């Protein structure tokens, strides 16, 4: 039987046992500005980060490359550390993205089976390079014209 109107309005209320651990990572300078603005808002535990550099490390498998990131308060952290307990990673990029940044994040998420999404802000030019850099690695790519669309999207994803 389909739910009645009253039943659809009333659902058993229970707290989210585990809050989702989201990492929002800016891949270039313009995206970093966006992330900085976002990080000032109220979120449900999401962490806002800025990609800094690729970091080659010794070893094999997905440990071969790592990356340094900056947190919202400016301290340095490692991609590998940030992804340890992450459920979802959202990369934010513009047409100025460095392809290797997209590749490192994408590979790291894929190797750890972390859900990944890419938000690409289209500027004056078509962000073709950013799109093809992110394409192999993000389960979802969203090409946006308007920065103001980002907060509701992140809210919907429970960041």
């Amino acid at each position, binding site marked *: *039987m*389909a*739910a*009645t*109107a009253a*039943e*659809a*309005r009333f*659902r058993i209320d229970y707290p989210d046992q585990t809050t989702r651990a989201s990492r929002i990572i800016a891949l270039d300078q313009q995206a970093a500005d966006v992330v900085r603005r976002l990080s000032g808002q109220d979120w449900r535990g999401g962490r806002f980060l800025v990609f800094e550099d690729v970091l080659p490390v010794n070893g094999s498998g997905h440990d071969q490359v790592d990356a340094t990131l900056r947190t919202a308060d400016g301290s340095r952290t490692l991609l590998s550390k940030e992804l340890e307990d992450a459920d*979802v990673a959202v990369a934010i990029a513009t047409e100025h993205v460095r392809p290797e940044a997209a590749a490192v994040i994408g590979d790291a998420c894929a190797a750890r089976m972390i*859900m*990944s*999404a890419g938000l690409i802000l289209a500027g004056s030019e*078509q962000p*073709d390079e950013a*799109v*093809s850099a992110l*394409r*192999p690695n*993000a*389960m*979802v*790519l*969203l*090409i*946006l*014209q308007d920065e103001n*669309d980002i907060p*509701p*999207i992140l*809210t*919907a*994803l*429970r960041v």
Partner: protein
Amino acid sequence: MLKQEINELLTQTGPGTPMGDLFRQYWLPALLADELPDNDAPPVRVKLLSERLIAFRDSEGRYGLIDEFCAHRGVSLWFGRNEESGLRCAYHGWKYDVTGQCIEVPSEPDERHSSLCKKIKLKSYPLVKIGDVLWAYMGDPEKTPDLPEWEFATVPPEQTYTSKRWQECNWLQALEGGIDSSHVSWLHSGGLRDDPLFKGAQGNKYNLADRRPFFEVVEADGGLFIGARRNAEEGHYYWRITPWVMPNFTLIPPRGDYPIHGHFWVPIDDENCWTYSFDYHTVRPLTEAELQAMRDGHGVHNEYVPGTFRPLQNKDNDYMMDREAQKRGETYSGIKGIAMQDASLQESMGPIVDRTKEKLVSTDTGIIMARQKLWKAVEALRDEGVRPPGVDAEHHKVRSAAVVIPKDQAFIDASREALTVRPGVRHASV
């Protein structure tokens, strides 16, 4: 997850609601042309955007869509007599033309008659036939947009077929099913193998080999393009591209040489909608076998409770759930037919699903973006009177596509032509 206020805003379409005002900017499917087959055919009750209306076709073939209830004492004009260029109320004989203008009050003395008549006019909306559908515009007459130019409605009649069914849930829930490309690999997996309107296409093998597509969502002038890609031959992706034109039009990516399928999701009221389902071929007539399959309820169509637009499989009979077929692997959900597989699950959520309780994931991004665009269009219209995307007939000229392209190409660039209506040119489909 959506805030309660926004869920209410997007799902309520009655007169005076913000979303209702948005819907009243567009030409909407009001009924099938077949429902008024001849001049002076019996009038048809039509409920749209929570307004109760009556549609009729007068002795000269003019279509009218007017208030269902007589101005005199509120009797339903469905009981009326459609005769001599007007619809006459069965109670005291008041008569109305297709514009809702009262043209006769037979109970009044002759002298009073004409002055009284002139002052009585029922609410009415323009109703026009394009293709197999009668379209209504329920907004401000001053802002009447150009007539719709959807390809399914403008190709020669032998190339197109449209059906409609009553769906017992809010329009947005139904629409969201239309842009949720990730459910196809699961819910509809059986149909790819045996539905007469899908099976055997080259593209199906990519679908069945790779059940977890990746998605790209790109904004378009009229709405969105949602691309789902799967691995194809070396160095290539198989892309299935779904256009959504605001607020309520979607196309399904085609398969092989089969016709393109698509939908309109039209609010009846806040807890019911009409699902219009159509199939059209861009360059050739539909074959007799295809038409028969459509009439039999295959593909996006369905069977009916005789004499109604209610699906034969409905919530009162649990959609004729067949657990054995499910076990044998013929259907994923146990429900027969693509249309009812979708409708059964969407109706099961309740008339208006509580979107504050969802747990959306990244593959729901198309839905998230569509809601965001609707919400922005509603605000822009309400606050600044901005004409929303999808009103302009240029926005109607989109196609869906199923293409194989090199991995490093953006589908939106590689398929720009394929996603645009080109009359006389076959649609892009593998």
